């Protein structure tokens, strides 16, 4: 007989709200069920009410950690729609920010996974080292989180030699720290005990379940948008795709640590090859109307492939923006991974995909009385909305008075 253990939406293991129902026998998990929808913010709908430029600052709030990836991905898609010629220097600055973001995101994640397995010391260490990146990001953009550096057609701020020299220092520092962390992780007995062989996702399953990002690469799948479909300046940047054949949480740690080293190399390359002068943005104003067009923009965010579909109807506002974040692609694999493991393995496995719940949240209708859950398609949603407004219209009007 299995016992139901609900975890979330409020639990110290989870930094963001999601609800899992684990069916356990003793301490072993036999089945699990994710239940998302606690922080749905309706951002996709909101983009249709805002202009192309206002959306830049809305979409970077999709995720706090990978704000630049979201904004850059949207800007990249919008540039395709506007058919803009983006100056080369802008692409360099944008890529620099993306790679810095990858560094601090991976450092943050490394701290979180260490906290999940009870190794708080390494958590403190990685978050301390992360501050170096955050300071640099603040120096370049003026803000620590949500840098707002991208705009449609380029970037908003130029970069000077002080920032570049500091970027070089930070890249060297983080690379040396990453090597230290790799040494610690591979030698510390208790970390190996907790992560080696935990949450195994075989290569076949990783492809079958459509995992993306470091989760897929830790299962030996060469899946990296920077490598497979180079965007911005990644076709010039020399870098190796990092994969590992361990397929477990340990190899997810190793892949991310090695990716930090690769990112540091890319940052160094960008610093040395950054064009000296030149414009940083194409001329697109708030009142430039785009042609009727549609675009698919893909960016390798720190957590994996980020996918934007943008459609324009020729007006100042986009007709549709569809976002697919990496967490939504990866969350299904968690269910596959936890089966057969202990309750104690839940935190490292769930944290192992680097989940960002509020990025990926979707709406589900839950009937509390009958304990039923259903999803709405577009037509049903429209019909429901019309019905609701017919019923509540008078009440709403009175409320406004």
């Amino acid at each position, binding site marked *: 007989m299995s*016992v139901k253990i609900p975890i979330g939406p409020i639990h110290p293991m989870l930094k963001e709200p999601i609800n899992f129902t684990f069916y356990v026998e003793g301490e072993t998990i036999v089945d699990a069920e994710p239940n998302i929808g606690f922080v749905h913010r309706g951002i996709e709908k909101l983009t249709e009410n805002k202009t192309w430029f206002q959306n830049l600052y809305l979409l970077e709030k999709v995720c706090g950690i990978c704000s630049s990836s979201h904004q850059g991905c949207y800007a990249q898609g919008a540039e395709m729609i506007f058919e803009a010629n983006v100056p080369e220097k802008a692409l360099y600055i944008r890529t620099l920010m993306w790679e810095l973001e990858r560094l601090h995101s991976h450092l943050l994640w490394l701290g979180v996974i260490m*906290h999940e*397995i009870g190794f708080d010391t390494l958590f*403190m260490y990685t978050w301390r080292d992360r501050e170096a990146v955050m300071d640099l990001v603040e120096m370049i953009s003026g803000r620590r989180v949500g840098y707002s550096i991208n705009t449609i057609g380029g970037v908003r701020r130029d970069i000077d030699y002080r920032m570049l020299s500091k970027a070089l220092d930070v890249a060297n520092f983080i690379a040396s720290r990453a090597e230290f962390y790799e040494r610690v992780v591979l030698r510390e007995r*208790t970390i190996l005990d907790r992560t080696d062989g935990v949450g195994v996702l075989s290569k076949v399953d990783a492809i079958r379940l459509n995992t993306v990002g470091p989760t897929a690469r830790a299962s030996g799948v060469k899946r990296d948008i920077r490598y497979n479909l180079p965007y911005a300046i990644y076709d010039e940047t020399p870098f190796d795709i990092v994969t590992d054949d361990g397929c477990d949480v340990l190899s997810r740690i190793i892949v991310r640590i090695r990716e930090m080293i690769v990112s540091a190399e890319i940052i160094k390359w960008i610093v040395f090859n950054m064009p000296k002068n030149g414009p940083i943005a194409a001329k697109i104003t708030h009142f430039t109307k785009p042609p009727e067009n549609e675009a698919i923009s893909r960016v390798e965010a720190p957590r994996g492939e980020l996918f934007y579909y943008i459609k324009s109807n020729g007006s100042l506002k986009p007709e549709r923006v569809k976002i697919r974040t990496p967490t939504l692609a990866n969350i299904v694999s968690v269910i596959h991974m936890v089966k057969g493991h202990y309750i104690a393995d839940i935190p490292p496995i769930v944290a192992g995909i680097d989940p960002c719940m509020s990025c990926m949240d979707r709406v589900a209708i839950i009937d509390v009385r009958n304990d039923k859950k259903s999803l709405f398609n577009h037509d049903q949603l429209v019909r429901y909305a019309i019905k609701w407004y017919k019923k509540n219209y008078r009440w709403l009007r009175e409320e406004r008075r």
Partner: protein
Amino acid sequence: MILLIYAFALSALFIFFSFLIEWIERKIVARIQSRIGPFFAGPRGLLQPLADFLKLMSKEDIVPIGADELLLTIIPILLASLATFVLMFIPIFTPDPLISYPADLIYIIGLSASIGALIVMTGYINPGPYSNVGAARFGELFLSFEIPFAVSVAVPAIISGSASIAEIVKFQENGIPIIVFAPLGFILLLISLIAKVEKVPFDIAEAETEIAGGWQVELSGRRLAFYRLTMNLETLFAAALCVALYLGAGYGPLLDTLGSAMYFVWFFIKLILVVFVISLIEGIMARLRVDQVLRIFWRYMVPLSFLQLILALFVRLIITL
């Protein structure tokens, strides 16, 4: 009557020292993790544990629905008093503890085991899966560490030929601590005591990220304050037991010239040394899984403790010859 007042004063002193130990431990762990640690309450944050305790005491009193209120009121008080009482057997301030009689070591093992049993009970009288899982995990841990603990406490008794702590301490008066005769026993005692006070890597029963605090999760306010006090007193007890049984209690150089005050100074220095080791292990390790903890204890610790028991008999034979 005087004895009673003395006991009260001693209890207050124990509580003070347990807070001091918590502060030292928090500071050491903070320094390992490149943090500052307690800072604002009192000089260098010295009063932080007391402030935490008082704050918890002033919180709203909540009894979870479905829990036994009477038991939840009795058990914390019982636990804190047991933890204080068990400390009275250990000669911390003077070579003669407040309570001492032949074979009190066995009584101590029993008392500390009953503390563990009460903790398991707390987990089960509270409703909710986390609490119950935490209690089950503490029960498993408790069964595992109790054998190495009891055996490694018995080893000094075998070597010194007496089951009274005061006698064992007197045995080390000549300057040779028992750790010289039984280093393995000391390591076993230290590891099982880390499990007993639920520190990393054996904090599976509270495991914040897994089961949200385990058996403590439903506790709040005054009850939680008493449980925390119990854990502090247990830490003091664990460190003091290591010092008294294995590290030669308060005996050390300069004792003859400076008198009996030096006894406590030496005891305290050794106490801090043990606390430092416990904190260091807490700082540099990750939490193990339940099955791994059980494997460590049953596959390595229990057989090693039996080996140590046999070795102790040989040592005793050589000493008496």
